[in-house]
């Protein structure tokens, strides 16, 4: 693989794309500056995975045009099965095209905003200016965040005003069915004071191969006493080089929960970071992964405690088969002054074949005395005594292994709030571990 250091998009390309979407000048400037910075900025350095030779910059087309959907009946079957057809709060993006959007009228009247990111950049520029790549993820962090800011071509914006509690989940589906497409998607989710929302996103490829880039950033803001539950099932095709960065910022008494089913067939670098800024804030991250083929992946989950009495939980379970390899870095960081903080983590890797590789790497960085912290990590094969127990009830070895693996990945499956998505994740696991 050759590494193209020269970017395929010029400043002029970025300016024209920005103009085409009538973006405010400030946003155009942000893109142009990020593009200029991207050339010189280094790649991120995920611990224990060398990505220097990965190709994050080549892609056949920045945007492709795809069809929109007038009604949910027009959705391809694979998408239909994961969407609750009664679902009122729904955003569907077809490759780079916002294809369907709907929001409960009551919520709209209460001031909830659900829209594609380009519309948000145009019509909600004050909110976007306040939250977009300012606090959680910064454009100048490294080459990939800079590229993301410069080339952003899709995504979703969700704003929940003060005291509004959204009972039904809000769903975003990103359908990838054009192998030329690249996804520079940004999800910006803002839960204002004392609000509450559950957001579930699906990345789904219905073509077996991709030629583009997936450079995805999510930023979640839970203001004082707000609560955000963020579920995701990623099933992107082989061929993408996937960089996915999902971060959250929790203020006083706020809560952010993640349930991430990372089922890509592409090489993937994932960063999932929660900043517990406010006192009594809670960050709970659950991630499950299945790696197969020759996939290389790195999953870094961090919870960074600033707030007193903040609670951070990290759970990661990965299954590796064939020659797949994955690194699971779990980082609990307690800053000075975050007294009574609690940082817990558990990373477990199950290997299904002798050539698979998995590495669980728990890290605790503590700069305060009055805290509690703990970690557990294990890497191993399916326990023969567990198999013996299940088989002693008449269950075949194959079925016993299946039960153990599904059980191992259940922590995320069970907490996904949409039945169709839960089922989809179960089926993807089934397909990948078979």
């Amino acid at each position, binding site marked *: 693989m050759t590494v193209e250091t020269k970017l395929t998009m010029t400043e002029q390309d970025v300016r024209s794309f920005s103009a085409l979407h009538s973006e405010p000048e400030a946003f155009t400037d942000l893109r142009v500056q990020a593009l200029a910075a991207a050339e010189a900025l280094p790649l991120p350095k995920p611990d224990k995975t060398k990505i220097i030779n990965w190709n994050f910059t080549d892609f056949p087309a920045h945007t492709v045009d795809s069809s929109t959907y007038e009604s949910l009946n027009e959705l391809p079957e694979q998408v239909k099965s994961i969407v609750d057809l009664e679902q009122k709060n729904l955003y569907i993006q077809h490759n780079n095209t916002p294809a369907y959007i709907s929001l409960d009228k009551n919520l709209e009247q209460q001031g909830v905003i659900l829209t594609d990111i380009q519309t948000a950049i145009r019509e909600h520029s004050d909110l976007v200016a306040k939250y977009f790549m300012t606090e959680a993820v910064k454009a100048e962090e490294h080459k990939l965040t800079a590229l993301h800011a410069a080339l952003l071509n899709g995504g979703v914006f969700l704003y929940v005003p003060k005291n509004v509690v959204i009972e039904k989940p809000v769903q975003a589906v990103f359908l990838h069915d054009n192998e030329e497409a690249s996804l520079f998607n940004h999800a910006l989710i803002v839960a204002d004071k004392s609000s509450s929302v559950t957001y579930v996103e699906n990345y789904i490829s219905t073509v077996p191969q991709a030629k583009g880039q997936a450079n995805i950033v999510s930023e979640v803001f839970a203001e004082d006493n707000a609560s955000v539950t963020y579920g995701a099932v990623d099933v992107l095709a082989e061929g993408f080089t996937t960089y996915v960065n999902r971060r959250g910022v929790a203020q006083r008494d706020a809560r952010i929960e993640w349930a991430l089913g990372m089922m890509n067939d592409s090489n993937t670098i994932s960063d999932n970071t929660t900043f517990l800024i406010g006192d009594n804030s809670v960050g709970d991250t659950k991630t499950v992964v299945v790696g197969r083929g020759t996939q290389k992946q790195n999953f870094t989950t961090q919870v960074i405690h600033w707030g007193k009495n903040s609670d951070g939980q990290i759970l990661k379970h990965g299954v590796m088969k064939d020659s797949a390899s994955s690194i699971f870095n779990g980082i609990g960081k307690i800053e000075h002054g975050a007294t009574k903080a609690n940082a817990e983590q558990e990373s477990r890797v199950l290997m299904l074949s002798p050539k698979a590789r998995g590495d669980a790497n728990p890290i605790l960085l503590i700069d305060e005395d009055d805290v509690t912290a703990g970690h557990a990590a294990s890497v191993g094969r399916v*326990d*023969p*005594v*567990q198999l*013996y*127990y*299940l*088989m*002693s*009830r*008449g*269950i*075949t*070895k194959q*079925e*016993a292994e299946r*039960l*153990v693996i*599904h*059980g*191992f*990945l*259940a*922590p995320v499956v*069970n907490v996904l709030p949409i039945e169709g998505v839960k089922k989809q994740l179960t089926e993807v696991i089934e397909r990948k571990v078979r």
Partner: protein
Amino acid sequence: MSTLVIKDLHVEIEGKQILKGVNLSINTSEIHAIMGPNGTGKSTLASAIMGHPKYEVTQGTIELDGEDVLAMEVDERARAGLFLAMQYPSEISGVTNADFMRSAMNARREEGNEVSLMKFIRELDSKMETLAMDQDMAQRYLNEGFSGGEKKRNEILQMMMIKPTFAVLDEIDSGLDIDALKVVSEGINQMKGENFGCLIITHYQRLLNYITPDHVHVMMQGRVVKSGGPELAHKLEAEGYDWIKAELGIEDETVGQEA
């Protein structure tokens, strides 16, 4: 009628010989109890019958109605009609007790002829009631976080749902208080009948106050050294094991290791 016949069974664990020629024959409609002090090979016999991966049979045979049990995989033995209530059941995270039991029942049925969900739930509810188990235990993960007593009840629950031809109960009574012992015994007694045979392994005669065995065997030094009727259990309760040791000239009854 079915018959389980164990002949001259020799078993090793990690190169160490534990069973040194066990002979035993059990018919359906019979309840057998194996008693004996610690470390005489009782649990090894249970594990060897089921096919625990750590136990190696070096000599002898086990036959179920003439079929060679030792040639079968663990799951095949179960489907052929054997069941072992284990002393230390595994905990399986993420798999609910109910899902597991349905899988176990369906493993015995042809595809397309699975047990119906309603019928399964009705049966599970009624058996759990017999065993005085909380309804929520059906939806808890298999044995995860179960107390010792809950695990034992759960083993008996599985036996009652699966309805094996022969059940081996490995120290099902250890760690149970008297109330739990009564409900577990009630569960076992419900199974009694012409299509069910049972081998109860225990240290204590206490369990046999609630379940009357037809045959009682005593194991020492990796062999069955004495067999008799229910009166043998009473005598052991009253007089201990020393008289048997004296009778047989045994000084150390163990096989040299906890087993």
